[in-house]
């Protein structure tokens, strides 16, 4: 099994979200970047395939040189090698086209990614990649087992789950359930040392065309202060929810 794990380089969940250059760019000043949490579930599942079923695991990111520490972290967690496609990622469609080249050139038969990145929340790259390659695709995947060529996959649906099956090649957009949070790995010193020696190949972009262009960012208008209601006057809450908030 040849696995490719797509890694997004995103601001840590607890980061302050601010913008610069007239609200056109994310302000990365003082922000800690991490492996996108959804991708981390996918990477951890890939490590299990490597350890239990002898898979090889390559990680890939589409981005400029600033994303390399995030790829090194993935290598320290245990990926065999890394690829960086050298172009700033600004649109999901363009990223998917770049990744399609990587998948074709490397003949991967299983591609794992997170269902979305926690920064732009686009949620489109895995599905677009599958469609471009005509690979089987499952979104919002919560479990994945592979036996030989046959994959059994569960995906989350509204109010339940669906179990699907197919043969490889397959692209999966995962989330929690693929593995649990307790299964996530922190790189140890040996992993970090080894990661320095593992190959990180930079490939040039095919300059794929974007489908969207970001114009500007804005932050939600400051919300009015929380209206406090006395614990002995719960009826007032019901009243406010009905007459003021109009939600009941």
């Amino acid at each position, binding site marked *: 099994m040849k696995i490719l794990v797509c890694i997004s380089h995103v601001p840590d*969940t*607890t980061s302050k979200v601010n*913008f610069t250059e007239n609200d056109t760019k994310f302000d990365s000043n003082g922000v800690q970047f991490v492996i996108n*949490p*959804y991708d981390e579930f996918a990477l951890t599942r890939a490590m299990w395939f490597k350890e239990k079923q002898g898979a090889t695991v390559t990680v890939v990111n589409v981005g400029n040189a600033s994303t390399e520490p995030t790829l090194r972290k993935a290598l320290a967690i245990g990926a065999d090698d890394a690829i960086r496609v050298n172009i700033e990622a600004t649109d*999901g*469609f363009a990223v*998917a086209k770049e990744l399609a080249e990587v998948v074709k050139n490397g003949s991967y038969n299983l591609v794992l990614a997170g269902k979305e990145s*926690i*920064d*732009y*929340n*686009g949620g*489109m*790259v*895995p*599905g*677009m990649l599958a469609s471009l390659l005509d690979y089987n*695709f*499952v979104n919002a995947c919560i479990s994945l087992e592979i036996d030989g060529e046959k994959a*059994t996959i569960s*995906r*989350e649906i*509204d*109010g*339940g*789950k*669906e*179990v*699907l099956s197919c*043969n490889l090649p397959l692209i999966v957009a995962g989330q*929690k*359930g693929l593995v649990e949070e*307790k299964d996530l790995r922190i790189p140890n010193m040996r992993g970090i040392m080894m990661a320095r020696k593992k190959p990180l190949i930079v490939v040039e972009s095919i300059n794929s065309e*974007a*489908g*969207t262009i*970001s*114009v*500007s*960012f*804005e*932050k*939600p208008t400051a*919300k009015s202060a*929380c*209206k*406090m*209601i*006395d*614990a002995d006057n*719960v009826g007032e*809450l*019901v009243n*406010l*929810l*009905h007459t003021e*908030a109009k*939600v*009941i």
Partner: protein
Amino acid sequence: MSVLVFAESSEGKFKKSSFELTSYGKKVAEQLGTNLVVLTINATENETLYKYGAEKVLQVTSEVLATFNAKKVANVLKQAAEKENSKVVIVDSNANGLYLAPLVAVNLSAGFASNVMALPSSTSPFTVKRKAFSSKAFNNCKISTDIKVISLSKNSYGVHENEVSGSIEGFSPVIATSNLSSEKIEQTTGKVTIADADIVVSGGRGLKGPENWGMVEDLASILGAATACSKPVSDLGWRPHSEHVGQTGKPVASNLYIAIGISGAIQHLAGINSSKIKVVINTDAEAPFFKAADYGIVGDAFEVVPKLIEKLKEFKANNA
């Protein structure tokens, strides 16, 4: 030219979000000076869409499509968009919509914007506002391709009546093949799902143990709400993982979110930011959740919630 909406149905019945999508699609069509076409698959009450502005309903009836398959449905949408010369294709932000939309976009060589939360601010260039950074910010983006695909964030536009005299046209697309087969579907039976709910009642570690969830369920049942929980609660096994809302759990975009005994960690807030009105009940007046809430009660949940249930019963009786 036209605007195409995919109105999903379940066992023939439209989901409420389908009416929101139709309302939204009608407005976008007006902005573009064109008509709205709504595609339905195995729906039985197609006429109900006229009320929300569906000028034309493209009705697909197919045994094969009785089970959702993203590739097949995306291909049907492509054929419909080509037949109707659709320049904007709008789908839902539910599980199937998000599965489908990227495939539709590739089929139509279209740029795709997800989590769209308002009408286009401009139609030339076509510019939409979408939620990003887990609703901590919004992104205005241009879709630069000839055809545009968008998924509308739930409850962001609302259901608006806009009665038109519509018509229904049968449509028999070619069904694509897919190597992916559905083995089984497991529904959590008889309960309101977090994705569909207008109101969500959520409990945290402040409730002290799974045996105390009765009042959460009682409160939810009076409000017709879904139940949810914080991450520690699902990690402790007090409630199923499917109820966990937050950054790595389910996102909530309900009209009303009631948090009981949840302190409001940033990861939790990231998942519920999209909810319109947030009510917090917590013993700790310093809990960070109060800063993000609209209404707050500092008090013991074991006293406040039963009282709230009583008051809601009175309210329901008086407003029935």
